[in-house]
């Protein structure tokens, strides 16, 4: 094994510059140079060290949902500009360039369909759209997904990845925390299951609302999860943060998440928890380990 790795590293050092980035990707954790195809097949988990690379929102939808079963909802919803907000750029311009870059109209995909044969409602956040920030559209779409769960008497699953509030929507951004929590309060009273999946990074207003409110909170390994960002904390306490602070493993130790789950096992774990909560029999296909 050792000789093989060495040879690979030699290739790496020589061709590093010329490696086209659409074919190869370097793992930031272990330094391995990985074929993007291979990485994609492995759900963007490094085959060498299991580091969880960032994964697109669509890819997350397909890794959770049964094949061809997902119906997207509210894809056409677009944010207004309630404050007529303008910093160095007007907000509508930021929205437009974010849409061009991310290929969608805001920072979340919502929809419904079967997951291991169980009908669920799903929301997956997209960090590539203005840092996964929560504005009116994110709040509205997640609330609608929760309301649909309520009407259909189904479960809700939210996959979070967010830097927090959408500053350009000011107080209305803050109020999306309240709005989504109002929807979750109704799910709670209706005794419907809600599973929150936290991915890297989940901070600020999203953590301090729906991301922490799951009946089951699941975190991907090594994800940054917290209320305040690490820089803000360092500035406040005027010391360096300890190793591993605000990572998934830290949250598990402090009782804030139920389990850390490898992305490649996420679907079967989610299905397993749902089957327990809903009183359904064990899956024929999925593992619950």
């Amino acid at each position: 094994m050792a000789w093989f790795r060495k040879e690979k590293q030699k290739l790496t050092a020589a061709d590093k510059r010329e490696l086209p980035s659409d074919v190869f990707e370097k793992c930031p954790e272990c330094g391995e140079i990985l074929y993007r195809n291979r990485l994609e097949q492995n759900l963007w988990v490094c085959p060498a060290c299991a580091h969880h690379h960032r994964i697109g929102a669509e890819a997350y939808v397909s890794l959770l949902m049964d094949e061809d079963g997902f119906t997207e909802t509210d894809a056409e919803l677009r944010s207004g500009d309630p404050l007529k907000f303008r910093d160095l750029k007007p907000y509508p311009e930021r929205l437009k360039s974010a849409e061009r870059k991310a290929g969608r109209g805001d920072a979340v995909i919502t929809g419904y369909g079967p997951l291991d044969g169980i009908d669920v409602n799903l929301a997956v956040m997209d960090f590539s759209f203005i840092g996964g920030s929560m504005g009116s559209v994110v709040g509205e779409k997640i609330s609608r997904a929760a309301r649909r769960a309520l009407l259909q008497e189904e479960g809700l699953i939210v996959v979070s990845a967010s830097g927090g509030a959408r500053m350009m929507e000011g107080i209305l951004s803050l109020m999306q925390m309240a709005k989504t929590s109002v929807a979750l309060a109704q799910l709670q009273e209706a005794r419907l299951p809600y599973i929150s999946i936290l991915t890297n990074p989940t901070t600020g207003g999203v953590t301090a609302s729906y991301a922490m409110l799951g009946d089951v909170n699941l975190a991907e390994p090594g994800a940054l999860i917290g209320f305040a960002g690490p820089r803000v904390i360092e500035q406040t306490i005027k010391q360096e943060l300890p190793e591993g602070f605000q990572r998934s493993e830290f949250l598990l130790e402090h009782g804030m998440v139920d389990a850390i789950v490898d992305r490649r096992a996420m679907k079967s774990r989610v299905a397993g928890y749902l089957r327990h909560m809903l009183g359904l029999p064990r899956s024929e296909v999925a593992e619950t380990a």
Partner: protein
Amino acid sequence: MMASSPLDFDKNIRELEAQIERLQGLARDGGLDADSEVGTLESKLKDLKKNAYGSLTPIERVQLARHPNRPFTRDYLERTFTDFMEMHGDRLYRNDESILGGWARLEGRTVMVIGHQRGRDMKENLHRNFGMPHPEGYRKALRLMHQADKFGHPIITLIDTPGAYPGLGAEERGQAEAIARNLREMAALRVPTISVVIGEGGSGGALALGVTDRIIMLENAVYSVITPEGCAAILWKTADAKDKAAEALKLTAPDLKALGVVDDVVPEPTGGAHGDWDGVADALRETLARHVRELEAMDRDDRRRARWRKYEALGEWREPAPA
């Protein structure tokens, strides 16, 4: 008192006040009659105040909202309410001094009052952690809200915080979870709930006491998703742009009323709440009593549904054009 004012825009006012005081002193010591001069200066002072406070810029309102001589939660408990009986602790970890809470009476009617408590000087601020709660503060607040719900009494919260504390212990003990849980549980409460932003409403740390049937603001209070300083540093790349950020964030009481977030604004006396604690406390009592009466007249389930509808409507988005 005014000599220690941190405001930039009332410098002229403070200078004139000092001048009047000097003149009065001279007249007294010398046995002279300076009444007419003092009278002239006093009417000039009145005009100056009217001008300065009549056209406050957003960043000036932020400064006013943070004014150390503004009445805090404790001051309203002594004036707007009677019979306050404080309760301590979250029953889980410790008592957080940056949030006060307990039973009180509003015009004789029992209510639960919970509010952020800032300090007026460094010693008090260290004790109160600058009004920045840890998770245990929010958990104490929730414990008291559930108690009010159990006994069917209205809940009034007073919001006055730069934000939830961003520290090691706060993160370890689940700051985000504590805030999130409060949001969801406040949505579910069955009693009338009213929040009042009395000073600075700083982001999630403010909202954690703020999911209520009615949201009220004092005229010079501010409520924002981020401080103007923080917003300027991120979006303008310099904290010097805090004036522009304050303007852009639409964080004043009239702005929030226009956006449909705030239901009612309590006017402050000319010169701001710090100039007349009793006056603003009386005005707040009248406003609160009116809202409590209105909310108590509603059916319990209708009231809660109206609360949900209110939050469901917040935000601005465009639906697709019909095909």
